[in-house]
């Protein structure tokens, strides 16, 4: 029976299938230039209190030890730095890995800019 993972914030479940990213693959996101992406990742590293090097595409929040309270802090920092308000129950609810997370953010930031 599926159980929710203790350390996994907002239910992002560990992703075991092929998610389209190779292990340790560099993160990219459509619509985000390299500099913006780097700012975003530095923010996640800083607010989530993890090493920047750990932020690879297929890392799950569980892998990173990021809990629900950390996610609240990360999303507020994103709101302040990039001006986008992202609810956890929208597209983010389906995000399982850091790669998925960045993809959702990129889409929302694009919307915000439009």
């Amino acid at each position, binding site marked *: 029976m599926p159980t*929710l993972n203790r350390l996994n914030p907002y239910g992002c479940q560990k992703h075991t299938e092929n998610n389209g990213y190779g292990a340790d693959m560099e993160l990219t996101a459509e619509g985000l230039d390299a500099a913006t992406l780097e700012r975003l990742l530095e923010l996640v590293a800083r607010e989530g209190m993890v090493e920047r090097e750990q932020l690879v595409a297929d890392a799950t929040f569980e892998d990173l030890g990021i809990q629900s309270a950390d996610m*609240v802090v990360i999303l507020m920092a994103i709101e302040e730095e990039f001006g986008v*308000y992202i609810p956890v*129950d929208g597209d983010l*609810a389906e995000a399982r890995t850091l790669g998925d997370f960045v993809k959702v953010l990129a889409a929302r930031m694009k919307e915000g800019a439009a």
Partner: protein
Amino acid sequence: MTSATRRVVITGMGAITAAGAGVEALWEAAREGRSGVSELRFPRYPRQRVSRSAHISGFDPAAHLSEQELKTTDRFAQLALVAAEEAMRHAGLDTQAPLGARCGAIIGSGIGGAWTSDDGHYNFYMHDARPDLLAIAKVMPNAAASQVSMRYGARGPSLAISSACASGTQSVGYGLQMIRAGMADMMLVGGSEALLTPASFRAWEALRVMAPQACRPFSDKRNGMVLGEGAAVLVIEELDHALARGATPLAEVAGYGTTSDAGDLLRPTVEGPAAAMAAALADAGLAPEEIGYVNAHGTGTVLNDIAESEALRRVFGAGVETLAVSSTKPIHGHALGAAGAIELAITVRALLDDIAPPTINWLEADPKCLADPVPNTARPTRIDAALSNSFAFGGINATIAIRKVRADGRG
């Protein structure tokens, strides 16, 4: 077991919510699927992100409170007094005669006097204004319980239980246990919350769990909860005490179960809620198949509804497919510390009328949730016993079990 020796029944109920003043208005709204949610805009908070809430419009405390009470109460205590007055009258109690030492009050609240804090802090920082001289006595989370105790002369145990969204349900649960334990014969129990202040609303926005448009529990495409406010108070008393004074038992408070996840601060588990429901059933001596209705916590967040659905499957097994389970939060909003008491009042009416109120705003099934949460339309169904669930931040889970009683109380 003490539970076998002292049975506890509900003899009166009162409520005030965005769905209207009084339990009758609340129940009609719940049954008919009429939502009290509307637009809320704060003049002191111009950059609001979310604007839907179940707030009480046009509440005039002066119509309900004495001048002394008006001077000394925050909105959350005022709402509790309104609900308590209705419950007292419904129970056939004399509102002018002191209830005495064998009656107490437990009115839960997640936060307490939020408006007094908000106004006080705002005026202090912005204007260096003279403080509200009674701010401390208005803000304290036990203010509602104390005001109820003072108004009706209830000189037994009085306190607030503050366990976030489980406060109301735990208040009923510990009231039940106090009566069973012989500490009191009658208790005014319930919850009250008035947290729709600008800064509190902003703090909820920061958690990013509020629905931008509609709250649709257990539905596909749900995207969050809707905040509410209000109060509900129930008169509960030992069965023979109720019968001796000629009161009509509405339902028996048959069992109480509560557990803690001891895990994540915000994210729910399956095990904790399942264990709370199982404990309430065991305390009541009820088998899962005897339950005819469950008023779910059902916040409408993606995670709560998945975890609660799975917990219900564990407790009720295959029977969950035919069990009437619904969330009435889209009607009255998530009233936080008052939620459990408001929803228990609805559950009692559902049991009395043999009608399961609907989960409104439901679009289509989410494969991870219960497939049939009484979507959108009330369902006549036999309800001999029912559960009401509340799960809170901090990992607190609480469930109350109620059961029908015959008119002579011997059901």
